[in-house]
């Protein structure tokens, strides 16, 4: 499941890429304002709905999250184990004899919030990436006075990702055809099996970098970059300012709730509900 642009003409598609980038930053700040899983889940639903209204197929977002499930599980378990407040209500220990690695109710609720926070950052990033071609981001950043050479570098690098993933696929096919196995259950064996991939992929990456350097030099990239023009230009419209004002208002409101601890009401409710359910 890739992060390829999903073409469309929705309200969100039409926003200036800078607005979308700021939307992502604001979504990140909001998710940092709370620990409460309920409020974080609400933020997730709102961003998901924005993506849905922009025409991103549910299967696309679903597929991206499916790939992340092992990471979520690992993060959740590690977080529950390492984050346990004093006098926590411990449900069980992973090593009961030593009373090590506790699973407490508090840590479980708190970690659900951590995972949701991570999910919110991801979904906000995916929604802006899926509704904006890379070239528009580059143009937006140029308007923010990012030096053209750096902006072009980012653009070329990101445009090369599909090419590089095709390359990796071809290298792996060639190796599998020579009886190379990676389907080991043992993670150490699995990692070791991938080591031979390193040489051809590095070689191909260096070759591609050199080819790109030659190609862009030959197409006047080094001619006079200070006088470079842009065929497409990004422009902030009323809708962009509206979205930014609304976004900033929601963010300020969230920070206020968070700083006064109001966001923890739902957190306590969830915690008490779980305690009541278990006991």
């Amino acid at each position, binding site marked *: 499941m890739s992060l390829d642009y999903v073409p469309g003409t929705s309200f969100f598609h039409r926003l200036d890429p800078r607005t979308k980038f700021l939307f992502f930053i604001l979504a990140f700040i909001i998710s940092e304002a709370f620990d409460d899983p309920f409020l974080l889940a609400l933020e997730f639903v709102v961003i998901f709905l924005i993506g849905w209204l922009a025409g991103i197929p549910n299967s696309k977002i679903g597929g991206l999250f499916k790939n992340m499930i092992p990471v979520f599980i690992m993060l959740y378990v590690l977080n529950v184990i390492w984050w346990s407040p004093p006098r926590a209500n411990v449900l069980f220990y992973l090593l009961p004899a030593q009373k090590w690695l506790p699973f407490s109710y508090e840590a479980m609720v708190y970690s659900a919030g951590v995972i949701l926070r991570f999910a919110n950052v991801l979904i906000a990033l995916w929604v802006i990436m899926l509704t904006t071609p890379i070239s528009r981001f580059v143009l937006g950043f140029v308007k923010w006075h990012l030096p053209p050479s750096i902006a072009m570098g980012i653009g070329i690098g990101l445009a090369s990702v599909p090419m590089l993933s095709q390359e990796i696929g071809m290298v792996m096919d*060639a190796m599998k055809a020579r009886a190379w196995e990676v389907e080991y259950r043992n993670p150490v064996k699995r990692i070791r099996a991938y080591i031979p991939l390193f040489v051809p992929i590095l070689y191909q990456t260096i070759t591609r970098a050199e080819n790109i350097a030659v190609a862009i030099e030959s197409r006047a990239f080094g001619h006079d970059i200070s006088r470079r023009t*842009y065929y497409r230009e990004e422009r902030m419209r009323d809708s962009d300012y509206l979205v930014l004002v609304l976004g900033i208002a929601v963010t300020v409101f969230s920070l206020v709730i968070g700083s006064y601890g109001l966001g923890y009401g739902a957190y306590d409710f969830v915690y008490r509900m779980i305690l009541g359910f278990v006991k």
Partner: protein
Amino acid sequence: MKVELFLSEFATEFRNVSFTYTDSKEPALKDINLRIKEGELVLITGPSGAGKTTLCCCINGLVPYFYTGELTGNVIVNGLDTKNQTIGTLSTKVGLLFQDPASQLVSPTVVDELAFGPENLGIAKEEIGKRIEYSLDAMRLRPYVDRNPATLSGGEQQACALGALAAMRPEIYVLDEPTSNLDPIGSSTVLSAITELARAEKKTMIIVEHKIEELTDMVDTMLVMDQGRIIMSGEPRQVLKETELLEQVGLKAPPAAVVCNKLAAKFGVELGVPLTVDEGYEKINNFLNGKIVRPFSSFREKQSISNPKTETPIVEADGLWHTYPGNVEALKDVDLRVGRGDFLAIVGQNGSGKTTLVKHFNGLLRPTRGTVLIDGEDTKHQTTAQLSRKVGMVFQNPDRQLLKFKVIEEVKFGPKNLGFSEDECNARATAVLQAVGLEHVTERDPHELGKGEKQRVVLACALAMKPEVLVIDEPTTGQDYKRSREIMDLAVRLNKEGSTIIVITHDMSLVAEYAKRTILMHQGQILYDGPPREAFTKTELLKRSFLSPPQATILGMRLRNYVPYTVLTTDELVDALTRTVT
């Protein structure tokens, strides 16, 4: 920077130019003197390593500014000595298109790609828009405006790269093997588009190509390079008088010219040098008119080597379908039986399903529907590693397949994965390296070898697994005629020793010369399965799949009055015509 303007009536001039790369002892260019007039169309040809690409890179300053080394003499482009210019300045005059289109596409969409050069030149937005429109139409790119160039087919990528150059409006176009990844019709479409562009814009065009026969009637001048020198130059008709010399340096001379030259030599007459099949037909027809004494009945129809449909096929595909993500149906109900000892060529345009089909033979792909049996066993129940004992595969680009820093270790990688002992791996590696003629490089780093040697290393890697079936994907890509033939000669030897060979290729002359059986694929289906001699008579089917028979076969067909059967090679055609005449 010192700017010195040379008074030169030529678009490009090389004055006693020699160049040696920093990491090389041998000069890549030796004492080149060359003058190309404004608006001239020049074809540069020569075997791999002749110095053609280096010469192209001199014109836009990549040599010596990017590819460093010692440059002597002067390269003068539009009156500017490249020694006193930057690549940036020269890129406003010279547009250079490289061999591999995928490696030079840098933008996320086709429109951005077309805009990239003009934007760098500081062209106004409105003018860039006009140029984009022009390139979209000239290169037939309109259906792909918002596509990522990486997702286009080889032909479309080439058209996009060429359109991007055209949008820069350079004075001189330099095109380095612009059709190396294309099927025959895709390649002639691109070459026609290039020459149309040059004529329409009255621009100087320098084209490096191995496919001489497709360009000789389109260009004004032809140069032949070998070992860093220009060994022949002049109008194509003048150069093609020496077809034997072209073949000596490892090039494939245009068949029509070869046939005329050979007939002329045999009968001591002057036939002239044809540049096209039509001209060849006219010249030969005029010569033969009134000279025929043998009736057709005295000829024995050339027998096609029949397809060995053995009782126990080694590869069997039944009702095979393959659908890629996004519902792209790459194979549709394919049935195929490959007998032991067969020599099969799978042909078809880019994207016809050839590679998808063969990837099912070693389990790299699994059927969406249908079955594939290898030696009677269903591939569903076997891993690719298990299948690799029976089916070896050599892919197109050797650099993607080289993992080790010693040739011998590279070859041992497969047998080691199969669990063989160190002694057995050594024995196998030594034997196959000897078989492919690489016993002298066992301790060298395979990445440092030449293209032809790298190709043989990856072939040795496949052979070390002792497969019964060897699949070779596009042995001609990036190789000159001589090297392609070397690989194919090796395949013939293996076939004689009992291996089953499956070759995927666009090169119809290789199919004609080597294959016992041709599988013609189009849009995921097999359109034809039979001997090449018959395949080439199916002109409608070939046309549908964007292929065309080799030039010798087409010429033979035109001369049907004198050659009553399908010929595959120039030698066959010359032989048939010689027997016709007393």
